[in-house]
């Protein structure tokens, strides 16, 4: 079967620093794919190149067979994206922002109203739908961004840190939405720092470190009999030094 997302040799340099180094990855259609890696590993850079926000120095990105950089309209129509670190048009209200996103995508007006209200309801934003997004909390901003990514019913959803700053109740709501979406044939790839979350939610996982792919495959393949946290630390390498902090416990060394 054709992969939902296929990255081949994606490379990006910022000056002398190689942020992403010839990274290749295939995301099978119908999978819930977790992307993990330490800070600065190149997750956001990779996803930006896969979604058309950042031009790669080399390599290709195919979305359901459409090349993101050779045939952007077809590729972009097939995916919904929640970027990290981009502003929103935050002088619109939540309701207006979803409408805006839908209209840019050419969603039919009748569908747009139903989908918008459904998304607002499901994400618990109905009450604040007429407030400006600039006045939203960080979690609410994430959720409205997610709604914008879903409103055109894409086949592939790419989410950069979708659970960051989101409260547990809304987080469960988002998980339910994503599970249902995958159960009905959609594909999700998202990045996260929380191993437990990835372990619970995903069926596939990829580990990125220093701009290269360290491991990828089904959850069990990558875990290789351990839990994801331990496996991740093995792949990425242990954290640096362990300077003496015994003063913090009143001079008693922790056992």
């Amino acid at each position, binding site marked *: 079967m054709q992969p939902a997302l296929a990255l081949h040799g994606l490379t990006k340099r910022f000056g002398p620093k190689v942020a992403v180094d010839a990274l290749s990855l295939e995301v099978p259609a119908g999978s819930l794919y977790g992307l993990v890696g330490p800070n600065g590993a190149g997750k956001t850079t990779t996803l930006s190149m896969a*979604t*058309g*926000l*950042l*031009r790669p120095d080399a390599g290709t990105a195919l979305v359901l067979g459409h090349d993101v950089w050779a045939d*952007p*309209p077809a*590729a*972009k*129509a097939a995916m919904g*994206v929640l*970027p990290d*670190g*981009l*502003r*929103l*048009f*935050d*002088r*619109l*209200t939540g309701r*207006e922002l979803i*409408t*805006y*996103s839908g*209209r*840019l*995508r*050419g969603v039919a*007006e009748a569908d747009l109203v139903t989908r918008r209200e459904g998304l607002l309801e499901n994400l618990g934003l109905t009450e604040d739908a*007429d*407030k*400006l997004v*600039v*006045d*939203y909390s960080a979690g609410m901003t994430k959720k409205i961004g997610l709604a*914008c990514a879903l409103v*055109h019913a894409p086949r592939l959803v790419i989410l950069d840190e979708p659970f960051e700053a989101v409260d547990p109740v809304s987080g469960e709501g988002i998980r339910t939405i994503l599970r249902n979406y995958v159960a009905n044939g959609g594909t999700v790839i998202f990045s996260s720092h929380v191993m437990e979350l990835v372990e619970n939610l995903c069926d596939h996982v990829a580990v990125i470190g220093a701009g290269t792919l360290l491991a990828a495959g089904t959850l069990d393949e990558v875990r290789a009999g351990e839990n994801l946290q331990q496996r991740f630390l093995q792949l990425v390498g242990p954290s640096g030094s362990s300077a003496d902090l015994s003063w913090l416990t009143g001079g008693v060394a922790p056992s």
Partner: protein
Amino acid sequence: MTGILVRLKLTLLRNGLRRSPWQVVGLVIGAVYGLGIVGMAAAGLVALRFAEAEIAHAATMVIFSIVTVGWVVLPIFVYGVDNTVDPSRFALFGLRPGQLLPGLWLAGLIGVPGVATLLVALCLIGTWSIGVLPVLAALISAVIGTLLCVLWSRSVLTWLSGMLRGRRFRDIAIVGFVVLMLAFSLGMQLVSRIGQLSPQVLLDLLHSAAAVLGWTPFGWIWGLPGAVALGHWLEVLVRLVLTAALTVGLLALWRSRLGIELTSPLDAGSGGGKVRADSFIDRLVPATPYGAVAGRTLRYWRRDPRYQVALVSLVILPVFLIVISLVNGRALNIASWSPVLIAVIGGASVGSDLAYDNSAFGLHLLSGVSGRDDRRGRVTAYLWVVTPVLVMAVIVTTAVTQAWQLLPSVLALCVVALLAGLGAGSAVSGFVPGKVKPPGSNAFSSGGGNLQSLLNLMLTSGITFVAALPTVALVVAAQFGPGWLAWIALPVAGVCGAAVLVAGIRLGGRLLDRRGPELLAAITS
């Protein structure tokens, strides 16, 4: 504690300067400007020594009362630029208000405004160098008066800080400040006519102003040396008592509020309420990608203070020109052309519209909206905003100046400037988008204007000018030759403008499709 806070403020100043050489340039320019003002004020104050004591008394009271009011009012508008010693930042350290207060007070004095005020106030010694007692009184009132300025400003700011942190208030303050500045410069135009009044009337004005201001809390301390010099000992006593009471009162107010600020920190200001659904905008534009962009841009003209400032300036500009020419009694001919300025600015400003999006433009990239729809949408919104302003301006200026014979010429220039400007801006911003302040940033913080934006503006206005050349030639010929040439200028303007507009949208759209990611990187801050 006091020493720590003063050193903190000095460190913050120094680190601010280290950030970029432009900060140093800014400080030097600010210092030169400040020194200029200080120098002029010093000269004026010393010159007052040779005026009658009554006049010097009245004049110094009025001047320094206004300075004090400035210390209260201006920081409200620029709140957030210098909150380097914002009390809520000390909330986590478990300090008492009494420990912080002296340090915050002194730290408020450090910086260009504090030093300039102190220097100017010390020149009062020059004014009152007519005896030992007046000099002493001048010295006392200069030091205490300056400290009171800072105390005023800190107390008021601390009391209002909850409100000032709110997004809604900042929005209003930005626009309010621009309106205030424009009104102020208009007022100066009128003040410049005061010179034509007789000296006696001026003196009466000064004395009545002094009588009022000098007895407001802002002026109590500043009347001290004059009262001493004139030998009004009862007044001296009253002023000293009132000043002491004021100081104690302000300190108590500040201290009580500081206590609250220190224990209820990190309140980012209450979130805004619901927004009126302006569904009329949705009726104005079609439910297509292009219509969505137009509707979004229209909403931004209504809601983003950066756009509101632009709109206010656009509306006030011709008023400004008309008032100036009326006041100066010059030929009103210049005023009749003022709508052209609106068309030029309103048209060319579409060139920086992409930069106003900042990284939010990423949404356009992600949704694969075509560059043409993006360009068309923005142009449509600008047309909706600028055209009514332009029509009103043409009607009002023509009614005021009665220069009906100029109407076709003015209209022709307006049409070509607006349409060609919109077209040129649409194309140029796909090439050099320029860089503007990010949304929600303080309007008075540094940033903004740079080489990119300058290039953007030069290219846009250059193309507009070239496109307008045939029209300009016809209009000029009509002024000196047969008047009917102006009527030919009108269709020529329409054709040239429309051609540039269509070509600009097409070219700009293609550039956007091709260079989307590069443009996003260029406008993201």
